């Protein structure tokens, strides 16, 4: 891997100016408005996610960032360049994985990475890249014979071949089984660990929550909110609950007396304790222990990004 960053470059990077800056872009196809009003910044070294249902405008936004489309209005800067106007200067500095892309059916893995490497001024070693992505055994296989996970790993290889500063990944894990998905997440974290910035789209809330440092929630071509997953949850869905089972009849009142507790419902030996403080779980455990309440079951219900999406849009992301 070519990790040689010159001192001059690292000096520039150490001043935190956004790698990607999107200001009020808009894009329509005929009368269909794909992107209505999207703005966000991406900081160096983070994994930034565009999250929303299919058709929300994520891919169109990505393709504007990659220089494949020009927005009808608004401004985009990627690494200080205009992606559409300065496309040729930008293409050598970014890595791209497109949604549902294919390669030639009968191209081998090896041919693909070596060809891609030949298109860039200072590529990484293709053989080493194949090793890192676990594709060494498949290097002589035709594209059409690869599994879904192998194809996606190959596309990651092609996105990394030029040692890019920013990597754009569009619906990277769609259609993969959970195991392959987790393997891909590890690879994406590895990209961040090498100091690169990652911008990805996903309609999987779990993926966004576990992989992204910050997410922008997009719906109907608009950004609804941008923050860390935890920040979004704390702001929009602070409600959390502890559900426990006990035969102790004094328990509900003891929980009601706790400071951060908003409501306690008891029915059939099952007690639901609701609150909005981050210390709720610890407070309940403390109380159980202090009063020696005989608990036979204990679980927590924590809000997720899924709940945030539901709260912000009024419907589930799968609707």
């Amino acid at each position, binding site marked *: 891997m070519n990790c040689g960053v010159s001192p001059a470059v690292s000096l520039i990077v150490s001043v935190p100016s956004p790698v990607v800056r999107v200001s009020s872009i808009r894009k329509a196809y005929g009368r269909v408005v794909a992107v209505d009003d999207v703005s966000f910044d991406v900081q160096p070294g983070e994994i930034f996610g565009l999250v929303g249902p299919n058709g929300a405008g994520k891919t169109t936004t990505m393709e504007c960032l990659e220089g494949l489309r020009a927005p009808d209005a608004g401004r985009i800067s990627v690494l200080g360049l205009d992606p559409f106007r300065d496309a040729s200067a930008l293409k050598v500095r970014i890595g791209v994985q*497109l949604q*549902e*892309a*294919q390669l*030639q059916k009968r*191209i081998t893995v090896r041919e693909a990475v070596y060809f891609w490497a*030949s*298109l860039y001024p200072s590529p990484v070693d293709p053989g080493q890249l194949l090793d890192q992505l676990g594709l060494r055994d498949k290097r002589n296989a035709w594209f059409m014979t690869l599994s879904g996970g192998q194809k996606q790993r190959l596309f990651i290889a*092609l996105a990394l071949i030029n040692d890019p500063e920013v990597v754009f990944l569009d619906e990277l894990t769609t259609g993969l089984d959970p195991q392959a998905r987790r393997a891909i997440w590890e690879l994406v974290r590895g990209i961040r660990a090498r100091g690169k910035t990652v911008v990805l789209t996903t309609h999987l809330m779990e993926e966004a929550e576990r992989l992204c440092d910050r997410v922008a929630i997009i719906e109907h071509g608009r950004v609804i909110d941008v923050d860390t997953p935890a920040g979004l949850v704390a702001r929009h869905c602070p409600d959390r609950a502890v559900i426990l089972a006990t035969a102790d009849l004094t328990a509900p009142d003891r929980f009601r007396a706790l400071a951060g507790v908003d409501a306690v419902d008891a029915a059939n030996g099952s007690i639901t304790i609701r609150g909005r403080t981050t210390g709720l779980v610890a407070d309940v455990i403390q109380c159980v222990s202090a009063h020696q309440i005989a608990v036979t079951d204990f679980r927590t219900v924590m809000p997720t990004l899924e709940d945030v999406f539901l709260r912000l849009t009024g419907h589930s992301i799968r609707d």
Partner: protein
Amino acid sequence: MNGLWRLTWLEIKIFIREPLGLFGTVGVPVLVFLGLGRVMRGAATPASPEEAFLRAGLPVFAALLMAISAVVSLVTVIAIYREGGILKRLRATPLRPATILVAHVLVKLLFTALTLALLIAAGRRVYAPDSPAQVIRFAAALLFTTCSLLSVGFLIASLVPTARFAQPLAGVIFYPMIALSGLFFPLALLPPWLEAVARILPLTHAVSLMQGMWRGDPLSSHLWDAGVIALVFAACTALSARVFRWE
């Protein structure tokens, strides 16, 4: 430029890996040529129409098949590449958009030249050309024609909605053109309006040019044919540059 040669070489390798496509491009024209030649030689007597067709018609017919199969194959490949997002993925690389398409033109021209070489080798005893110059002029006329028809192919590729329609649509456009090209019967036999149509079709001029080059006519007597073919090339290239769809 480097990228163009690398991509062309890659596409050649990929093309060879599909046996059916290779057979359609190289095998069919050669087999049609040898098969028809054998059948007609049985019927041919000196100065009969069969003999005339064998001398000047059949080589041109085989060449026309090669040019058209190149176009049909180009339209199909472009449609498949577009549908699969391959064109889009290549466009996200530093390759220039024109390079991505020109590589396919070079592959088609290369296989057309290769098929012609096979054809000439296979038919050497019967169709012994008068001189190597004649062969070279004929080959040049064929490649020039193929180039022009490929530009029509890009226009068709912009029209086809999906890869499934590529082959039928290209066929519907080109096969009637073969019938009206003057290769099988003189255009004067057609009703006047149809003759007028036939005279503006590019294949009619392609046939006239290739037949002329095969007979050893001077190029000066076919400048009009060459001009029409060049015009078709220029017009279709300019038009496809505007309407070509990458996705």
